[in-house]
């Protein structure tokens, strides 16, 4: 076989100096991108459990009207922590986990560009998360919502130290996230296999590249806002306090100029995963590679010009609203059209309905629902009606769960054999899929109606108005189904790891380089690489081998 050099950092990899018997010490001290990737995923699972318990307590409290199961103080802490946890400590680590694990493998590199920084980013992120949770012991968790509006976030209205922990915790998590993103950018730019031009980059790697730039550009406003808030609370500065000359609106601008790109930060990697999954299980190349990549770049740029659609009820004036309505509708086009690219990829293919593929297909429906309700918020007058109601709660869960998480699930079932070396039972996987899909839709679809019927979000209880009670009860039952499905998932993953069938290198007849190596890959990923002819390098290799056998 013709081979090319394997790019890797010039210093020998530090991890190889420690024994690689996979003992606990090695996991803690590792700088290997695969082990760090798995640690990221485990971190995501840990916080998923915490954030999930918070969600369940919220749903129990809301199951009947005028309920006293939780005090308003506790409820406010729980919904704040649920949102903050899921965004910063569950979705983000899960995305980074898949990124640091698979980006080097897909571009034919042996590690990230800065292996030690990779480990540092993971641990500082975990530390930030733990600091955030420590606030429960330090007098009270943050209680002003995950977007933490001023002046409710000021000491006068939130006396416990929870919001101080929010600031410091998220600053640390942000350092980790930005660090990893810089690492990924450098890796993708400098450590691609020879011949892998940007046009031959797998779609997942493209999306991670775009996403990393997005993270590096979006986090500074958040960090600035968090630092200013900490100064307000600790040193009595006046950034957000209107009574002493500050402006609560500045917080909203800073937060959302981070917060809206963040929504795309959480969805672009899933777009990348889905693009790989649809190709492999349809046995066809992606429909419109340039379009998918180009629209990814367009989304990243437009993402910085749409943040005011979170503020349409603030009263900023029709001129401002017109601009942001236009930009928000515009970003809907490249985002929505991808759904048709994936349908086009499936069209005429030879479809294999694995659990991963089912998640990808369900994504198309769930994400379309979330996307359409998103466009509703770009239409300013509809936003005036529905913003800050339960309709938003439904919408954001259709985007974060129905969009991002369904994509990550497709990725988990697609890559699990590579990471563990074992196959997941398809039968159990499909049980999980259906339980999860039914639970998810049962929990959140009805919340659209609750919003239309005037139920505001973030209420710890509600009056017994017509329809409110049964709809909330249904939503709570759905929530329990979802939790049950997660328990089943953990059981499946554990069982497959113990007694699953060995996966072999390439169980799915896949297209990209990670499937050329053993499952799980050795500490040193590649000793040799095939020549790169397209973004489906492994398929090219397999086709050439077949042609050589039959042809000559």
């Amino acid at each position, binding site marked *: 076989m013709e081979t090319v050099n394997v790019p890797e950092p010039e210093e020998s990899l530090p991890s190889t100096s420690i024994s690689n018997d996979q003992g606990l010490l090695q996991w803690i001290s590792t700088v290997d991108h695969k082990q760090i990737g798995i640690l990221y995923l485990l971190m995501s699972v840990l916080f998923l459990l915490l954030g999930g318990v918070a969600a369940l307590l919220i749903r129990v409290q809301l199951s009947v009207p005028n309920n006293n199961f939780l005090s308003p103080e506790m409820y406010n802490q729980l919904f704040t922590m649920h949102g903050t946890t899921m965004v910063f400590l569950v979705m983000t680590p899960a995305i980074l986990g898949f990124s640091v694990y698979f980006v080097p493998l897909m571009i034919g590199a042996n590690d990230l560009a800065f292996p030690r920084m990779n480990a540092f980013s993971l641990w500082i992120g975990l530390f930030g998360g733990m600091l955030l949770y420590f606030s429960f012991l330090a007098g009270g968790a943050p209680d002003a919502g995950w977007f933490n509006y001023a002046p409710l976030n000021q000491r006068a209205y939130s006396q416990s130290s929870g919001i101080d922990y929010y600031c410091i915790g998220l600053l640390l998590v942000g350092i980790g996230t930005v660090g990893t993103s810089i690492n990924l950018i450098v890796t993708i730019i400098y450590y691609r296999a020879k011949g892998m031009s940007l046009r031959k980059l797998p779609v997942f790697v493209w999306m991670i590249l775009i996403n990393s730039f997005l993270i590096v550009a979006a986090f500074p406003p958040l960090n600035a806002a968090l630092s200013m808030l900490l100064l307000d609370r600790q040193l009595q500065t006046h950034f957000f306090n209107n009574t002493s000359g500050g402006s609560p609106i500045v917080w909203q601008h800073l937060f959302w100029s981070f917060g809206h790109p963040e929504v795309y930060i959480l969805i672009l990697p899933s777009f990348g995963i889905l693009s790989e999954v649809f190709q492999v299980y349809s046995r066809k190349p992606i429909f419109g590679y340039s379009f998918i990549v180009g629209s990814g770049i367009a989304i990243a740029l437009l993402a910085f010009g749409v943040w005011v659609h979170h503020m349409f*009820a603030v009263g900023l004036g029709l001129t401002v609203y017109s601009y942001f309505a236009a930009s928000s509708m515009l970003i809907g086009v490249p985002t929505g059209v991808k759904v048709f690219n994936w349908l086009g990829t499936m069209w005429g293919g030879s479809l294999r309905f694995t659990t991963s593929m089912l998640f990808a297909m369900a994504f198309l429906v769930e994400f379309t629902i979330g996307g359409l309700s998103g466009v509703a918020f770009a239409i300013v007058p509809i936003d005036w009606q529905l913003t800050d109601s339960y309709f938003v709660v439904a919408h954001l869960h259709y985007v974060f769960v129905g969009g991002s998480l369904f994509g990550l699930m497709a990725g988990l079932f697609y890559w699990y054999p590579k990471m563990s070396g074992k196959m997941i039972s398809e039968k159990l996987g499909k049980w999980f899929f259906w339980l999860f899909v039914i639970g998810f839709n049962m929990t959140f679809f009805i919340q659209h109606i609750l919003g239309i019927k005037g139920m505001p979000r973030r209420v710890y209880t509600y009056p017994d108005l017509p329809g409110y009670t049964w709809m909330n009860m249904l939503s709570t039952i759905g929530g329990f189904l979802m939790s049950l499905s997660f328990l089943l998932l953990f059981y499946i993953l554990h069982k497959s790891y113990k007694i699953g069938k060995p996966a072999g290198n390439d169980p799915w007849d896949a297209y990209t380089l990670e499937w050329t190596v053993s499952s799980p890959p050795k500490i040193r990923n590649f000793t040799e690489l095939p020549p790169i002819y397209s973004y489906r390098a492994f398929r090219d290799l397999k086709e050439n081998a077949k042609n050589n056998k039959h042809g000559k």
Partner: protein
Amino acid sequence: MFKPVMDISIFNPQSESGWRLYHLDIYFIIASSFILLLVIGLLIYIALKFRAKPNDAEPKQIKNNKLIEALMIGIPFIMVSFFFYLTIKTMKETEPITHNETPTVEINGRQWWWQVSYPGTSVVTANEIHLPANKKVLLKLTASDVIHDWWVPSFGPKMDMIPGLVNYLWLKIDKPGIYEGACSEFCGKQHSKMRIRVIAQTQENYQKWLTENAKTANIAIDSSLIKGAAIFQKASCAGCHQIRGTMANGNVGPDLTHLASRQTILSGTVKNTTENLYRFIDNPNKIKPGVNMPRFFLQQDSLKALVTYLHSLK
């Protein structure tokens, strides 16, 4: 606890703006149902038609199709352009600029109640907002502590109330009735129980109500009321609450001049009965956790006298 007089829903518009937004909603629901059904339909068709069969050869490797891609961008682009036009049109109709008009009512959001005053009159009340039906009125919306938000779903748009800023909203209610809404921006512990109650009246009844409420409170001369009135002043109630016509002129809690004429207390969460008032004053935090009103540990008979006095404030 209370059945609303009107069904609370954005699909039950009861004002001019409410109707404008309702029509836009309907257009959007039609367009988005079309897209959703298209995606679901295509997905089902594809799943049935292109399912892998054993020993399938590799399918044809189609990489793109310029015409389909152009349509994929073009059609959604036309659709959003259409909705952009409708957005601008509806916005301009719903939110015309205010040219220094005097607002009919000023609503000030507080943790966790609404102060309601009527510029040009001496009327100040709380939580229950009386407005004339069938007349275009201008609401002035402000806040004193944190951000609150005005939302009565049947009336259409919501509007934030932001400390330090002033927002306006036009409103023309179709017909008399009682309309419910709620604070829609998370504002702390009792955000959930910050309900809005709008009582829309005919022009005539509204004027009558204004005249009644502009009056100062009746002076307590009846012996059964004097004790309560004295406790009100002494037990420092007067430091926070106003009863026009007496020495009580606090501006921290709701104006109580005509408390007994209101249907509900505590931002529309409980009925205005002597029992509820008694329970609340006895231990405010129990019935409204987090409330800023402290507990005064009054004797039972003092408390009864106080409640009797307050309930005489018609």
